[in-house]
């Protein structure tokens, strides 16, 4: 049976040579036959009269629900679940910041500069750093817990001015974020809302709550705790794994949890423990978005963080190298299939958050007051595993990845790199040296041509046409592992973009890190728009989440649409069963927020269409 392929040839070869290991790549062909009703979003399981499905002979559900109602309900539920995931992350991060501020944890704050800035700009105040931390965290938590008819207070200060005004006039300002999620579930339950338009507007409110709190605020809190990103060159790919060390692989999205290992693994006790197990020391092996986040902030833990290995669908292969001694997970992108590979390779698993509890993992519930004890247990588990398993498994780390990946890009570091203002970038765009900006974001999946096939193919074509690419999400793992985030990739860009890259010493694809950094891209875009004195939809900028995978991506996408941006997806988000919903998302919405969705599964036609959007927006700015 044909196996799914990746854009990453070394990964393909590695998996082909490990025929005894079954990964998601093997499971794609036997799952190739899909249910047409599910794909179009017209299967409804909300009551015992169902599941109802829409066909020419049964155009409505038993209750009378139209395909438009079914699709909108399914879509809003998915966006609400995705929003819930990111809101869970920011809630945990804020609780941790509050407890550090209260003195209930020995963790230091490494980004106090940002804390001071936010205490001023968000007017949360505080006499010292601890009080500032507590105040900020409490204000964030208070907003999350407001009832839905009470609008979140920080939105006005976090959002780009013209957008806030538009959202206010359009009734799009979100109430308490958790209540917005809660009421989305109420709204979409059996025989409640049947209004597709109201449900789509609710999705946009969830998108705003996700973007400003789940994404942007999580970044800020983690920057305060673990230190702000710094631009640096780093190694990426499986090659970062050194089998001489006790290797702890981390998966998830919460550096506010996994980060407690950073300093703990550098302690003298850790060194002794590793030595006693027969290892050179401990290393954190970055994987999925928490690894991208650590890569972004790696200037603050260079000794212990080995580097980022890859995205969601490289995790099973990474365990299969045999060089991983323990998997610590705290959120999603921890594939169930990885558990089988862990058992095969004798790798124990520990979960820090029960929302990501894996069946064969030990649950070690995170508590910011007990970080030393938790880190100690993780170290002990990893060292014991190293001592017990290494003689029984074959270790085979392929030569993979690049050692000159430019990392650490953020809304602040990019601006500083450009000299403290976006003017130089705007000048390059105005002069046509850079035609426009493409934010290539989101997940990886195995169905848009294969693993990262669309993402990598589209990115190559975009830079060839002098469109600079900014990446945030599993797309970063994809693009750094095929060399597009290394300076030499400048050679693959069009003549004008290549010149820019060579003169600045940067690759044509800029690495903003994890999907959470979609929040950083929004701030970057808002900064550029402010410099130009225009609203976001005017910018020659598009977003593409070509290989979106999960519900979180749909919440991110809803944020992009609320921002008024053009959003490309290679696979439809289960909406095509409704002409109305498809019409609003791909056309009608442009008259409300300025945003719209382009669905296109072909790389060349996608890039043609995205380039046309950019040229159109350039013309709108008189360029």
């Amino acid at each position, binding site marked *: 049976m044909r196996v799914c392929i990746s854009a990453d040839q070394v990964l393909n070869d590695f998996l082909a040579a490990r025929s005894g290991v079954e990964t998601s790549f093997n499971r794609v062909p036997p799952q190739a*036959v*899909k*249910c*047409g*009703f599910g794909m179009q979003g017209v299967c409804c399981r909300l009551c015992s009269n169902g599941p109802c499905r829409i066909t*020419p002979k*049964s155009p409505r559900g038993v209750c009378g629900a139209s395909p438009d109602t079914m699709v909108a309900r399914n879509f809003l539920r998915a966006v609400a679940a995705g929003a819930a995931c990111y809101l869970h992350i920011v809630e945990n991060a804020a609780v941790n910041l509050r407890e550090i501020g209260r003195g209930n944890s020995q963790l230091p704050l490494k980004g106090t500069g940002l804390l001071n800035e936010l205490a001023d700009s968000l007017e949360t105040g505080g006499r010292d750093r601890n009080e500032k931390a507590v105040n900020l965290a409490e204000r964030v938590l208070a907003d999350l817990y407001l009832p839905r008819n009470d609008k979140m207070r920080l939105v006005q200060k976090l959002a780009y001015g013209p957008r806030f005004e538009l959202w206010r006039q359009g009734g799009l300002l979100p109430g308490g974020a958790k209540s917005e999620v809660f009421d989305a579930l109420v709204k979409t339950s059996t025989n409640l809302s049947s209004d597709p338009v109201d449900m789509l507007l609710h999705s946009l409110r969830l998108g705003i709550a996700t973007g400003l709190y789940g994404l942007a605020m999580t970044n800020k809190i983690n920057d305060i705790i673990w230190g702000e990103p710094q631009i640096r060159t780093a190694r990426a790919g499986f090659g970062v794994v050194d089998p001489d060390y006790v290797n702890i692989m981390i998966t998830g999205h919460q550096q506010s949890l996994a980060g407690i290992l950073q300093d703990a693994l550098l302690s003298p006790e850790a060194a002794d423990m590793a030595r006693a197990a027969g290892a050179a020391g401990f290393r954190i092996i970055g994987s999925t978005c928490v690894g991208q986040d650590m890569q972004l902030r790696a200037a603050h833990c260079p000794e212990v963080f080995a580097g980022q290995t890859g995205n969601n669908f490289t995790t099973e292969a990474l365990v299969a190298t045999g060089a991983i001694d323990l998997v610590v997970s705290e959120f999603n992108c921890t594939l169930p299939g990885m558990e089988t590979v862990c058992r095969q390779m004798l790798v124990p698993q520990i979960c820090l958050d029960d929302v990501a509890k894996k069946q064969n993992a030990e649950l070690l519930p995170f508590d910011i007051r007990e970080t030393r004890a938790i880190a100690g247990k993780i170290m002990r588990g990893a060292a014991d595993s190293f001592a017990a398993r290494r003689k029984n498994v074959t270790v085979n780390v392929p030569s993979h990845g690049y050692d000159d990946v430019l990392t650490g890009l953020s809304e602040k570091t990019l601006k500083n790199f450009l000299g403290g203002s976006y003017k130089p970038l705007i000048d390059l765009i105005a002069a046509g040296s850079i035609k426009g900006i493409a934010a290539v974001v989101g997940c990886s999946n195995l169905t848009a041509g294969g693993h990262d096939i669309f993402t990598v193919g589209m990115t190559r074509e975009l830079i060839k046409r002098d469109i600079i690419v900014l990446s945030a999400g599993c797309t970063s793992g994809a693009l750094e592992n095929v060399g597009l985030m290394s300076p030499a990739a400048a050679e693959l860009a069009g003549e004008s973009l290549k010149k820019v890259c060579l003169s600045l010493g940067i690759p044509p694809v800029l690495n903003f890190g994890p999907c959470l950094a979609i929040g950083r891209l929004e701030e970057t875009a808002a900064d550029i728009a402010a410099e130009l004195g225009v609203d976001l939809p005017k910018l020659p900028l598009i977003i593409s989440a070509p290989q979106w995978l999960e519900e979180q991506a749909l919440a991110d996408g809803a944020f992009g649409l609320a921002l008024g941006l053009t959003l490309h997806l290679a696979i439809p988000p289960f909406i095509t069963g409704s002409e109305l919903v498809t019409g609003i998302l791909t056309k009608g919405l442009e008259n409300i927020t300025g945003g719209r969705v382009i669905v296109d599964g072909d790389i060349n036609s996608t890039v043609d269409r995205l380039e046309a959007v950019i040229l159109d927006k350039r013309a709108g700015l008189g360029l």
Partner: protein
Amino acid sequence: MLRILIKPELCAGCKNCQVACLAEHSPSGSVWLADLSGGHGRPRNSVELNSRDLPVPLTCRHCQEPECVTACITGALSKNPATGLVEHDQGRCAGCWMCVMSCPFGMISPEALEKKTAVKCDFCQGRETPRCVEACPTGAICLAEVSPETGNNTTPGEAPKEEGLH
């Protein structure tokens, strides 16, 4: 005589026909209780993608000149002259798999749990409408009247279609 007629252009790929076949041949006969993880064996039909990635339901054609019957050495397989159905007698099956190898459509297989005898579509053993036909939400799997002599479709208004896996 009735036969199952496949209209691949109507197939939505939902695999409901497989769920129904599995349920029919499970202890309870219920779709609610059928073990979809393999504990009740495998469905006797399938849905495959053709060369254009479109789903096509596959089921036993109860051929006019069945290769499986010709290949069967024990007489477990036979063509019923009255109904035209290709029938399989489990009691006489030796599990030699000659039928499995000879069926050009891959529609007879070793029974998945015991692997001692072959299994194939039994047209739901006299059920008025086979479960897969009943379960198909789009009409891609339907019943057609065929001529006992030629096996050709004689349902009014229904031309035989050759469009299949290729």
